[in-house]
């Protein structure tokens, strides 16, 4: 498909959505594994199995009749997150950090009245924010406190690191920073800032917002380049370990770097977006193809991370292929 005006994109190694869907998602992600990542309650169990840090689950609301549970949890925990179990694109997520007589306090200091909260919970239960049709569950989880290094980089929300993991090998990563415009959400298409990360060092290389290159965070005017992401080796290990364990060949792992718990799994994504390429100013295809060509991927996490680093530097992976054969 290297013709016409697209030839330059092909030369840059850009992975298009059609190719992502057919060559990677359809080829490497068996449909039957989708519920594992689409349903966050199952993902959490799976992550605990793999020995990965996850946010603590306070409770699950399954039916409209259980909506009152939120009051009990609010009394006990004060600070928590509600999210639809099968939500997509961050829809429906709401963060509370305190209680009041009339309702719960949101991160921006506003009090949300109980009636509004229950209405919102009912909307989530009826599947308004969820993938597919039909009803959903609502999870009530620990609110993750982002690492203090992010205090001047994330506006009104929790920043996270998205790592694309292919056959258990991390291939590309970016830091996603919420802004005033994105309403505290870290999603790029809602106006969040994406920053490309050097996969070896964990230092950000450049930032983008709405597809335009930026050097400063739009709200704080702090530089988004050359920022050392804290706990980078642990992040790589978490992503690689979970990506390998979950059975999906091509997966996006979203990680929050927590002040107390360190890198913590937020969620998995079976159809990770391709915007990460603009954040890194690098096409995914040249990074995916050598791993696609590997006969076998090592079981050992350390070896997979070594492959990831060599791959990022553009080194040939032949040596690793031999190692696995002899081992």
């Amino acid at each position, binding site marked *: 498909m290297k013709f016409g005006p697209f030839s330059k994109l092909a030369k840059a190694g850009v992975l298009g959505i059609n190719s992502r869907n057919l060559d990677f998602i359809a080829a490497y992600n068996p449909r039957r594994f989708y519920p594992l990542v689409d349903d966050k309650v199952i993902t959490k169990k799976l992550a605990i199995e793999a020995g990965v840090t996850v946010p603590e689950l306070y409770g699950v609301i399954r039916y409209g009749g259980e909506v009152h549970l939120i009051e009990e949890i609010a009394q006990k925990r004060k600070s928590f997150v509600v999210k639809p179990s099968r939500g997509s694109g961050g829809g429906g997520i709401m963060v509370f950090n305190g209680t009041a007589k009339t309702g719960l306090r949101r991160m921006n200091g506003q009090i949300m009245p109980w009636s509004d909260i229950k209405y919102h919970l009912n909307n989530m239960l009826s599947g308004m924010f969820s993938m597919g049709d039909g009803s959903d569950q609502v999870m009530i989880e620990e609110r993750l406190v982002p690492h203090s290094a992010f205090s001047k980089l994330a506006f009104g929300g929790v920043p996270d690191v998205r790592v694309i993991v292919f056959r258990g090998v991390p291939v590309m990563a970016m830091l996603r920073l919420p802004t005033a415009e994105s309403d505290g959400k870290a999603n790029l298409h809602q106006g969040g800032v994406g920053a490309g990360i050097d996969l070896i060092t964990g230092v950000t290389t450049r930032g983008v917002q709405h597809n335009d290159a930026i050097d400063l965070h739009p709200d704080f005017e702090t530089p988004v380049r050359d920022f050392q992401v804290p706990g980078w080796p642990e992040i790589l290990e978490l992503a690689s370990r979970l990506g390998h364990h979950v059975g999906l060949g091509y997966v996006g792992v979203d990680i929050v770097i927590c002040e107390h718990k360190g890198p913590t799994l937020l969620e998995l994504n079976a159809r990770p977006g391709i915007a990460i390429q603009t954040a890194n*100013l690098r096409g995914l295809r040249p990074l995916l193809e050598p791993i696609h060509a590997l006969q076998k991927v090592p079981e050992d996490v350390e070896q997979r991370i070594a492959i990831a680093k060599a791959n990022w530097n553009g080194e040939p992976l032949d040596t690793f292929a031999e190692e696995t054969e002899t081992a």
Partner: protein
Amino acid sequence: MKRTQLLIIVCVLIATALGVFFFKVTQLGFPVVPDLDSDTWTIESKVSFRGRGDPVQLRLALPESQGQFSIVDESFIASGFGIETVTDETGRRAVFERRAQDGSAVLFYRAKLVSIDRRMGQPENRAEPEAISDYRRSERRRAIQENATPLLVALDSVLTEALEKSAGERSFITQLARLSADRNDDRITTIIEGGPPEIDAAADRLVFMLNAAGTPARLVRGIILDTDTRQAPLESWVEYWLDGEWISANARTAEPLDNSRALPIVYDGASIVDGDGFRRLDVSWSVARNFESQLLRAMERGEEFAPWVNATSLLSLPIDLQLVFRVLLLIPLGALIIVVLKQVIGMPAFGTFMPILIALAFRETSLFTGMALFVGIVSVGLLLRAYFNQLQLLLVPRLAAVLIIVTFLMMFIALVGEASGFQTGLSISLFPLVIITMTIERMSLTWEEDGSAEALKKAAGSLAGAVPGYWILTNEYIEHVAIVFPELLLIVLAIVLMLGRYTGYKVTEFFRFKVLEDSEKVER
């Protein structure tokens, strides 16, 4: 592996399609472009009724192969019924008989008609009427004036006025029609009171007056062949004898009608269907302009050399089914457009096939009124949806509420349209309600979550996708090719299958990743 399988399937599909297509075009001579001025028609009458278990005899009036039209071919579908055609003083009739009929039954009559071109010098073979003594002759006028009943006096006055105001036979008829239609005229009221009971109706009155004036005239019920329709209304008009031929004319104004389009079925108030032993009778007529004679010839040739062509041809279906397929066969093309827009161009839109469903709805209106109605209903719906959200309703009841409101909106538009003589209002009754409702819901969700810009972008994308869809769904040439050569849709299937394995970039990605392309240049 998957790729080779797919390639084989695609090749087989394309080869089959082109093979059948070329065979039909070169060997059988099927026309590739439609002849839009063709004067052949197929009419079909569908008679449905319920029997009471008694013997049934049902007599259906049939068009006659004389005058303007010539019946090329006709057939009946009436399983279990004995059929014969008889010609009596009221015209030609088909008689369906059965010893006992219980429950519902449907009978079909189907005829192919050719409108004879007068310029070819076709002899007029309709019976010449008996001469009636002409009012304009003085002895008849005297006779009327001597027998001065109120009816005759009024009649005399009207006829005299028409005669005085006219310059010839034709303008006399026009004047008479004008006078006859005016019910405020005291003379006309007198004629209605004194004359036979049926002349209360304008058409009957005109026939009565024309006959009184000595111009042979008769009332006709029949069908005006115009566009393809599954519910052709039975119309009434008059025929009068002028310069040695019967002229079909409007029952009110006596303006001549297009003879090649007015198909008479019964004369002088005879019933279309009569008989006994049945109830809940329903007769409907459908009309379709035939494919030109070239196509008929091709079908005849097909009958001889390749019967399978005709057996698989949609043209052998009943007309009302054919009319359905004329739309259905275009849907694959619409689907192809959607695939191209989504996979190759990357157009944002709500839902997968929504643009094509919107285009189908526009087919019923027209593009611009359709767009205006769509935008109008969706915006009002959005406002209401926002209000319902404040009332804190649950998802499904809220959707249902929006659905009901949209129904009311459409009712309102139809009523306003009717009151202001704006015809398009009615045709939106086929506007897909649920689709509009889902659009409103999805659009308001996108609006809240991703902002107004994104929502408007997607709405514009949906509408923009509907435009090429509309163009395809209304194009006469494409419609012709689709129904005469349905095998070509296999090519559409082949293209769609190929695009299903398209891993190239989308046009929108070209802009999205332009930075990467440029950076590549800098690095090298």
